[in-house]
């Protein structure tokens, strides 16, 4: 008779012990599976939150003395500060190709005088020289501009600005209507640079009557062009590339990794740039979910330790009652390994049954736990960076800090097949170790010693 047959006979004939062990293992497995399901649900919710919130970092000039490329020049009675190492379209292209990067919003902006255009007037008085000026935003790919990706602007006609474009531009539909312009028409700056209109955009909102805004900051007057247009119009060493690059990533947790990869790009001296991470929105929103994850991990560890201790104690107590049986089996020439195999197989057979049935019990409990935990997770107020309505004041990207209510992802607490796999792997390991440890004291005895104990 092999050890499996002996184990099976023991299980079906010693019903009391088998049922007690089954209940212990079922409870243990239910706790473990519930904790695993909660952990997975929390991780999935965090992942969903990360995907929905995203994250971004800004690459800009380092305006401190650490930047060896920084130049300060006096121009027209003022001071011009710029970096000779600027963000090239090639660098933007390389950053964009990194896995996990969603958008690259590369910009360089300044004011340009547009003598032939009738602009929308702002309500802040400005000097005469700026009255016919508007902001020109040089970009790499306008569809990846944060103003477009955030929905502040929407392209309604034509196409976006693409890398490699020269003397192309987008204007607002309002400005086009006001000036009788259409796609294909050309506007000209006071420096003679021509901009062919290739697309029209519509802002989601325009400034209200009470909003204080200058003419050149009005969103309806904004001109989005390519880098070549900006360089031609400025004709200055200060404008040879982009000033800022906002990199949006799909997973904030992957941010550090992406930044590391960015810094590994060859041919760039990072002493000239500063990188600023904006991860606050995600961190605020994910805090409660992270706490849940930590709680679940702690519960899981405690459950595992308690399970091992309880199981080992019970099995040790039971193994001492089986000295007689061990002696008989040894005296019959059955090897210690076979006897140990029988004792372990008994627990394993019950464990497999208990672990399988725990799928249903843990699903029921996990569902309840999910319902209990859900109300606390329904919504959270997070501080996020928002694009302002106006085109922004000079030298700024036109962003404001605001509070946004983020709907927290639903906790889908269900037991997955992989949870069962983990349970079987961990559970059967624990059971084997516990049964093995508990039998060692008996197995280490010589057959004669066991027979002496028997008598």
């Amino acid at each position, binding site marked *: 008779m092999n050890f499996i047959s002996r184990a099976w006979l023991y299980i079906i004939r010693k019903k009391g012990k088998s049922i007690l062990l089954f209940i212990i293992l079922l409870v243990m497995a239910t706790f473990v599976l519930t904790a695993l399901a909660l952990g997975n649900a929390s991780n999935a919710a965090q992942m969903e939150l990360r995907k929905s919130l995203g994250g971004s970092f800004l690459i800009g000039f380092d305006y401190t003395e650490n930047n060896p490329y920084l130049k300060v020049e006096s121009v027209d009675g003022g001071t011009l500060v710029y970096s000779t190492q600027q963000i090239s379209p090639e660098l933007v292209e390389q950053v964009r190709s990194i896995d996990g990067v969603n958008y690259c919003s590369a910009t360089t902006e300044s004011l340009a005088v547009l003598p032939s255009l009738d602009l929308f007037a702002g309500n802040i008085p400005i000097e005469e020289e700026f009255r016919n000026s508007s902001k020109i935003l040089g970009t790499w790919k306008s569809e990846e501009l944060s103003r477009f990706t955030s929905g502040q602007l929407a392209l309604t006609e034509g196409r976006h600005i693409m890398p490699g474009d020269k003397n192309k531009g987008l204007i607002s539909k309002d400005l086009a209507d006001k000036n009788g312009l259409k796609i294909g028409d050309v506007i000209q700056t006071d420096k003679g640079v021509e901009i062919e209109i290739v697309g029209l955009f519509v802002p989601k909102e325009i400034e209200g009557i009470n909003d204080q805004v200058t003419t050149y900051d009005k969103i309806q007057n904004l001109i989005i062009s390519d880098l070549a247009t900006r360089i031609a119009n400025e004709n200055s060493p200060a404008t040879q590339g982009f000033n800022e690059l906002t990199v949006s990533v799909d997973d904030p947790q992957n941010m550090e990794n992406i930044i590391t990869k960015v810094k590994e790009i060859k041919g760039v001296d990072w002493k000239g740039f500063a990188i600023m991470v904006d991860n606050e929105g995600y961190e605020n929103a994910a805090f409660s979910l992270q706490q849940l994850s930590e709680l679940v991990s702690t519960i899981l560890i405690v459950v595992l330790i308690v399970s091992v201790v309880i199981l080992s104690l019970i099995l040790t107590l039971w193994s001492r009652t089986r000295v007689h049986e061990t002696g008989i089996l040894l005296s019959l020439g*059955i090897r210690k390994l076979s006897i140990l195999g029988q004792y372990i197989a008994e627990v394993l057979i019950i464990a497999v049954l208990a672990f399988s049935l725990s799928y249903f019990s843990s699903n029921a409990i996990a569902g309840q736990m999910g319902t209990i935990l859900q109300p606390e997770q329904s919504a959270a107020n997070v501080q996020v960076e928002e694009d302002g309505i106006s085109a922004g004041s000079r030298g700024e990207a036109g962003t404001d800090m605001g509070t946004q209510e983020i709907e927290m992802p639903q906790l889908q607490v269900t037991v997955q097949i992989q949870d069962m796999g983990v349970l079987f792997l961990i559970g059967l390991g624990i059971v084997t170790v516990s049964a093995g440890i508990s039998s060692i004291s008996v197995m280490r005895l010589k057959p004669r010693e066991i*027979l002496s104990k028997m008598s």
Partner: protein
Amino acid sequence: MEILNLHDVTYSYDKKKNILKGISIQMETGKMYAILGPSGCGKTTLLSLLGGLDSPSSGKILFDGKDIEKVGLGNHRKNYVSFIFQGYNLIDYMTPQENVRLTAKQPALPFLERLGLSKDEAKRNVLKLSGGQQQRVAIARALASKAPIILADEPTGNLDEDTAQDIAEILKESAHKTNKCVVVVTHSNELAKQADIVLRLMRGKLQMEQLY
């Protein structure tokens, strides 16, 4: 045919006092041996050494000319020896058939029926059988194992006179008809009378007794 050979075997529990002192004896198949002696003289210890449950402090035990230590005590117990104990030592969650099948690959029922158990009794839990029936199951297990040596420790100690007589005859028959070497440790003169050779263990030495 000589099957067991003890060469100058000594045994001590504490390495100070030898309970067995230089025992040498040859045992043959087809014979039943009875070992008599007072309590605590080392009879069960001698049986344990013969069965490979323990090792002698010095000396050798040869099975079929081979040192059982070298063959392996587990191997010796598994293939060459069957035990019958005073307390029957059956596995309490098994039926008689299952107890016999622990060591035997052949069908258990013929052995049990030969020893007087019915089919119905062969399927009951062993704890629901009488002491005599349980000892018959233990003997059936020993016989079914095909081991050439049966070692019995007070096999009739817990049985009434009639049943003890039956068991003694079964053991003798096993030696004579199935050509096994049966070694019985006992206090019972009645059982010893059934043996072909009676040995007495006194002060650690084994002496051959006159046949009854």
